[in-house]
């Protein structure tokens, strides 16, 4: 290290000039990934827009089968989990090891609450024969294409649900690493990056909630 100025920390890869540069690059990389995520969900939102433009009355009728209260509770649950993940990052920035773990555990708990509520919503619909595509047997909606709305509903909320499951997996991994003291104020990139991912999952739901549950 001919030009070493100050201490080079062990987590800095050789191709980065400094810890800050590495951190900024990781964040930019994550934002580019979130870009692809927006386009990924974007495809489904476009399907939603096209079918709603074709069948506006279908969306009004079918949305009555969705439980507004459960959707609203889940919205608040996800907002709360966004706060706790932000607090976990803050804890890392102030070197509060125990708080990182606690806030991540609360976030995992809230994410699980979200999935449990979603499970009850799904099973209630399955019992009534509200299934996607050709499996649809429910007769309570007077529209020949009622199954189309629910195909879109299951694809969008399902893909979102998969993202919640992946988020839980990532946060369990973060907790295990944090228990070994991996994250400090000088290195907490994985917590920050997972936080960005989790907030995007929240943003997607912020749009899904009014578009699915609040139509009339």
């Amino acid at each position, binding site marked *: 290290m001919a030009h070493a100025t100050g201490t080079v920390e062990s987590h800095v890869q050789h191709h980065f000039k400094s810890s800050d540069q590495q951190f900024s690059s990781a964040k930019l990389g994550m934002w580019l990934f979130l870009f692809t995520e927006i386009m990924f969900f*974007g495809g489904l939102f476009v399907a939603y827009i096209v079918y709603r433009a074709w069948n506006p009355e279908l969306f009004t009728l079918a949305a009555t089968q969705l439980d507004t209260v459960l959707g609203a509770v889940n919205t608040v649950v996800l*907002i709360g989990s966004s*706060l706790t993940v932000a607090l976990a990052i803050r804890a890392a920035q102030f070197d509060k090891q125990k708080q990182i773990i606690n806030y991540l555990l609360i976030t995992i708990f809230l994410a699980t609450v979200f999935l449990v509520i979603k499970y009850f919503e799904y099973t209630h619909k399955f019992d009534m024969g509200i299934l996607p595509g050709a499996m649809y047997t429910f007769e309570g909606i007077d529209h020949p294409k009622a199954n189309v709305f629910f195909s879109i509903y299951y694809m969008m909320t399902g893909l979102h649900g998969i993202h919640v499951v992946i988020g839980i997996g990532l946060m369990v991994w973060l907790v295990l690493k944090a228990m070994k003291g991996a994250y400090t104020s000088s290195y907490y990139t994985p917590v920050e990056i997972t936080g960005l991912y989790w907030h995007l999952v929240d943003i997607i739901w912020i749009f899904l909630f009014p578009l699915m549950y609040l139509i009339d």
Partner: protein
Amino acid sequence: MSAHHAIPLKTLLSTTLALVVLTVVTIAVFYLNIPAPFDVVVALFLATFKATLVAMFFMGLYYDEKFNTVVLIFSFLFFFVFIGITLLDTLFRESSISIW
């Protein structure tokens, strides 16, 4: 601006409060039964405002290097192009052609 900016606790808490209040407003607007196109417009306006709060204060774009904001804005621009070009097809099809 440093990429390592710690977001003030007060900012995080007031953002959360604002998001919950806006969720209540969204639901209240739904029960007001605003006529057809405007209910969607209001709901999407509120959702976009909420998403902006999340992006600025939870995701830290307000404190961050501006290029990350540019990435986010461009993702939405490309999404609008995606919607626009698709609707140019689907909204103007012959009614005799069976859709789906």
